[in-house]
């Protein structure tokens, strides 16, 4: 039997990926350029018995998603720059309460209203540092329609496995472009469901570290009664200000993602084996970079591409290793140097790193990257 193939927009593929992953709840608020995710799910979720709700604002949408997830349902919201800013409050709440949920942020220009229909890659730092306090972050940056589908599935899997919010951030170009997608068959991609508690309700503690750094989360209405609060809490879920407990819980929340970095981080290497120059790029910019690498090689320049797929946790080890193999690294990105900063942090001065930045709402084309490669040579 041949697989189902479609010509589809990235945001639409994202919505179908969510359904594939078992998402049965969406709450959102209209915002360009992510609205198609909501539009498709408003049609698709009722078909599979799920719920769609358009909330009164972005904050309420994030809140409803967390509330829904606490009943054991996989829940999603989708937004863009200004909405992502508004959601930070409750993203922090999901971090500290350790409630799984997925946020799609289709990146547009900023700050503020910026350029609603223009592409951008300038929310990557917000995805890590957007909400206050120390907290873990997982952020995936797909570069194609197909990958927006599969990374949405992976986002749900990571979220359920690690009890944490996960952000998927296509730039506007990836979200809005249309290309061929081959739909995975049911069962073809792994789908992870959160583990249910194994202890009787009377013994259940929502942050019981005897089960490791990711304790099982019970669902409201499943016979387990417990308390959830955004205050610093003890293993029983109730607020505490006791220094030792707060320190331990805070450290565990960050550690649970940090120590799984090797399991979470994904990237793609293209023609890097003999490369003198590495382009580190992600999203739509990585597509221009791939083209530029091919062009450079036609002119005898040994260039290669390191494509970031998991932005957070950042592929630190892989970038450090890359720095030991190449003579120069270039980071083209639709912001003013966020990835450059992060790459330099990993490279520790081993290799020169330069950036190509664009924040005018236009994509970075292959010619601009090729010019950058020539400049470095």
């Amino acid at each position, binding site marked *: 039997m041949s697989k189902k193939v479609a010509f589809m927009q990235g945001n639409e593929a994202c919505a179908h990926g969510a359904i594939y992953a078992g998402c*049965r*709840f969406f*709450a959102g608020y209209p915002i360009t350029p992510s609205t198609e995710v909501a539009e498709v799910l408003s049609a698709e979720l*009722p*078909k599979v*018995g*799920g*719920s769609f*709700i358009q*909330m*009164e*604002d972005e*904050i*309420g*949408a994030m*809140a*409803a*998603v*967390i*509330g*829904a*997830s*606490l*009943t*054991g*349902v996989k*829940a999603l919201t989708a937004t863009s720059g200004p909405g992502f800013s508004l959601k930070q*409050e*409750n993203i922090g*709440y999901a971090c500290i309460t350790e409630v799984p949920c997925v946020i799609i942020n289709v990146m547009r220009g900023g700050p503020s209203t910026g350029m609603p229909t223009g592409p951008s890659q300038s929310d990557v730092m917000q995805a890590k540092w957007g909400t206050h306090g120390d907290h873990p972050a997982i952020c995936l940056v797909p570069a194609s329609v197909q990958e927006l589908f599969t990374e949405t599935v992976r986002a749900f899997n990571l979220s359920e496995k690690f009890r944490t919010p996960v952000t998927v951030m296509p730039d506007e170009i990836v979200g809005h472009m249309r290309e061929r997608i081959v739909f995975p068959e049911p069962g073809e991609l792994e789908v992870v469901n959160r583990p249910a508690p194994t202890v009787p309700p009377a013994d259940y503690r929502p942050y019981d570290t005897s089960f490791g750094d990711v304790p099982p989360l019970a669902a*409201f*209405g*499943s*016979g*387990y*009664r*417990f*308390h*959830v*609060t*955004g*205050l610093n809490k003890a293993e029983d879920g*109730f*607020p505490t200000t006791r220094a030792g407990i707060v320190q331990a819980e805070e450290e565990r929340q960050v550690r649970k993602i940090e120590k799984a970095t090797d399991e979470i981080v994904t990237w793609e290497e293209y023609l890097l084996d003999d490369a003198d120059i590495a382009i580190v790029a992600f999203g739509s910019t990585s597509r221009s970079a791939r083209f530029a690498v091919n062009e450079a090689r036609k002119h005898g320049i040994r260039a290669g591409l390191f494509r970031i797929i998991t932005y957070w946790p950042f592929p630190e080890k892989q970038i450090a290793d890359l720095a030991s193999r190449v003579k120069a690294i270039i980071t083209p990105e639709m912001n003013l140097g966020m990835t450059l900063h992060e790459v330099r942090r990993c490279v520790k001065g081993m290799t020169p790193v330069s950036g190509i930045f664009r924040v005018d709402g236009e994509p970075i084309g292959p010619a601009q990257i090729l010019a950058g490669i020539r400049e470095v040579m």
Partner: protein
Amino acid sequence: MGFDYGKYIRPGKLPHIWCPGCGHGIVMKGLIRAIDSVGFSKDMTSIVSGIGCASRLPGYVDFCTLHTTHGRGVAFATGIKMAKPEMNVICVGGDGDGVAIGGNHFIHACRRNIDITYLIMNNNIYGMTGGQFSPTTPTGAKASTTPYGNPDPPFDIAKLAIGAGATFVARGTAFHAAQIDKLLAEAMRHKGFSVVEILDSCPTTYGRRNKYKSVIEMMNHLKDVAVPLSAAEKMTAEQLRGKVITGVLYKENKPEYASEYRKLVERVQAG
């Protein structure tokens, strides 16, 4: 004779954090009696709150409880109700939480008529942060941020709820303790968004700035201003000046949001 609150209070959680004479404890007892009288099971009842003194209530009671972010309780509750309509969902909070920072969620929950009971403990002040004026602080009243008297006019929460589309709206006071559970029980039995405002007092941050000499004076104030709806109907506008009408102020039957959405799902699935 007395009511066994121990059945619903989490072991070891009392005494609660509320100040001496704060009415929130009286209201919590009313809420517990109401839940008991309507027979909601502990496992299938979720109590959600935002931030503030009143929002600490869920921590004490043995249900599926969720203490969320400031003003967002109703939005979290909406997610729970939509994802699991068979759960009984109750949201609790104070005046600042509910109609200032949470005002948008509040009016839209009223508009949707989603089956959530929303208990607002209105003590006319932000107590937890030290007594700043709230959207229900009377004009002229003193608060830590209105040292010359409050220049703002207040909201009438019940009118706001009715105007926004809530299908059950009631008001009581912490003084009239025996009425609290009656109002809340009727609200819980109502299918739709029900709002119960309980006028409450904050002796610590409101009373002492506004010439209430004691907890008792504040309780007596609640006693004096409250006029039951039946009595109010026979009073003139002049007689009602400075009074607050209590009882079930509004009730109508309208399609409930979560069950209407499930009907939509069935329709779509039937093709």
